[in-house]
């Protein structure tokens, strides 16, 4: 009897706390629900729709209704004359972007961090962040105006200084597409991307600087032995994240910079998906090409992540 009472009261106690918990949790669930619904529909929905890449698209049956055709559309892409050019262009743009674009914000952050005067520091930072807010359309328009072989300011300057052969057309020549793409990307995003390194540098313990100075380190050695190690984890994480996006070369900018003259080097996988998929309604083929892109991206991410984990114990996941 006593036992039963005890059990009973315990039960109600537990029940109450469970109810209370649920009461609290249920509010949290309501708050997170819109995000869950959105992600489920707009992010996982298309993932579910990936099966389109293995089906024959049927207008009347929609995203997941056509007949299974296996790897037909992948084979069609691998055997198409556009396979190597699109793959090569995507890789070239992505690798050159990382190779030259990735170190620049780090260098800029080291420079900004070395400026003593707060006012000068702020002026420089405000200025170099600004291009980040310019839209891609406007950036590409600026490139076209400034690099125009007849009236362009930068084109004229480079030719006057003989840094550029007089017959170069920076917005037409296939050879200049990648440099223009990468340099303009650095111009636009270097400042913005440096924020995170500047923030990481600002949290370096000032005792470390003092210790380095006492040990007789000069400014270069301080950079090498104090500052770089301090921001190394941030560098590695961002490098992994960039590696994971290696093939998602910015659709917008490539698409906008593309013209009939440079198409041989500017047709990347994403613009190709747009051209064959959306524009010519080859939905299954386009999905297959897109999926190929995503899978390679994901493999790069995992590879970079595991390499980083092995070598430095830093990883994303």
């Amino acid at each position, binding site marked *: 009897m006593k036992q039963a009472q005890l059990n009973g009261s315990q039960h109600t106690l537990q029940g109450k706390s469970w109810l209370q918990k649920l009461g609290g949790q249920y509010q949290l669930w309501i708050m997170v629900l819109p995000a869950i619904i*959105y992600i489920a529909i707009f992010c996982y929905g298309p*993932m579910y*729709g990936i099966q*389109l890449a293995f089906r024959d698209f049927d207008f009347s049956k929609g995203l997941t209704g056509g007949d299974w055709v296996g790897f037909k559309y992948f084979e069609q892409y691998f055997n198409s004359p556009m396979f190597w050019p699109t793959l090569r262009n995507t890789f070239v743009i992505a690798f050159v972007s990382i190779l030259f674009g990735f170190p620049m914000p780090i260098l800029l952050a080291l420079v900004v961090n070395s400026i003593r005067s707060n006012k000068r520091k702020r002026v420089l930072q405000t200025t170099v962040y600004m291009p980040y807010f310019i839209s891609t*359309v406007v950036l590409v328009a600026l490139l076209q105006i400034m690099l125009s072989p*007849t009236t362009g300011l930068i084109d004229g300057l480079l030719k006057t200084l003989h840094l550029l052969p007089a017959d170069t057309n920076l917005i037409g020549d296939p050879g200049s597409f990648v440099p223009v793409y990468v340099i303009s990307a650095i111009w636009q995003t270097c400042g913005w991307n440096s924020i*995170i390194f500047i923030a990481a540098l600002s949290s370096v313990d000032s005792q470390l600087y003092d210790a380095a100075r006492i040990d007789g380190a000069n400014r270069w050695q301080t950079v090498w032995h104090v500052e770089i190690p301090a921001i190394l984890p*941030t560098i590695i994480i961002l490098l992994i994240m960039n590696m994971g996006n290696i093939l998602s070369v910015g659709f917008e900018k490539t698409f906008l910079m593309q013209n009939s003259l440079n198409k041989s080097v500017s047709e990347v996988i994403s613009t190709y998906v747009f051209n064959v998929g959306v524009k010519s309604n080859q939905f299954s083929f386009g999905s297959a090409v897109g999926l190929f892109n995503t899978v390679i991206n994901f493999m790069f991410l995992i590879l970079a992540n595991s390499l980083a984990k092995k070598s430095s114990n830093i990883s994303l996941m």
Partner: protein
Amino acid sequence: MADRLYTLIVVLVSIAAFLMVAYPLYFIIIASVSNSTMVSQGKVILWPKDINFYGYEQIFKDTRIWQGYFNTIVYTVLGTILNLLVTLPAAYALAHRKFKARRVIMPLFVFTMYFGGGMIPTYLLIRDLHLLNTPWVMIINGAISVFNLIITRTFFESSIPEELYEAATLDGCSHFRYFISVVIPLSKAVISVITLYYMVGHWNDFFNALLYINTDSLQPLQIILRNILLSNQAFAGGAGSGAGAGAGSYAQQFADQIKYAVIIVSTVPVLMIYPFIQKYFEKGVMIGAVKG
């Protein structure tokens, strides 16, 4: 000696970086009010020459730009409000250590940053939802960015002490109430940062409109800009320039001036918000990205 060299290089690099960014921006401004012939001859370098506002006059006459402006403002305002309504509560819930489900929800969200269905399945989904060619696609698509969610969640986790919540619950405060009257007022920094991110995203959004909007009257500013700036489409208003070729076109010699003016008119709104929020940047970005 080595230190002096270091300082010298720092000074040179910062001056170079400053000039490389600032000068082109400054040049657009002076070129937009200068005689375009002199601009193309390279005579406009430090100060505007033969000042005129022809480019701006043409823009004011062009109805497409105003329609685009109007659409973009609508998409930006409604889109950003929706962004905040979805992101902030979700970030709050996911920041709660006692909310066990977050261990499942968060990875599922983060996964979408690295893996997605791709352009075609997304396009067909939007089509099946009957969102093609509606303003809704510009507002709803992208209602939450997982990156911004992480920034916000990390801010809530690290800057708002849990004891505060415990004290509030003792006073009988619900999650909703605590969120609205305690968390939101304490989070101005991170809210400003993600608001700016979202607003800039909507303002500069070109991709969604390119893919999902065909109707002229629904096109946002960026598409109109592409037509004017990159496709060299004529000004519909006819641009009574006198030197124009046929009706509906504008004189080539004024083309660049109009373009500079268009660039300024379309970019200034974004640049105007930026100084107000700038002081929060490093804090906000740092918090989110390091843990990202």
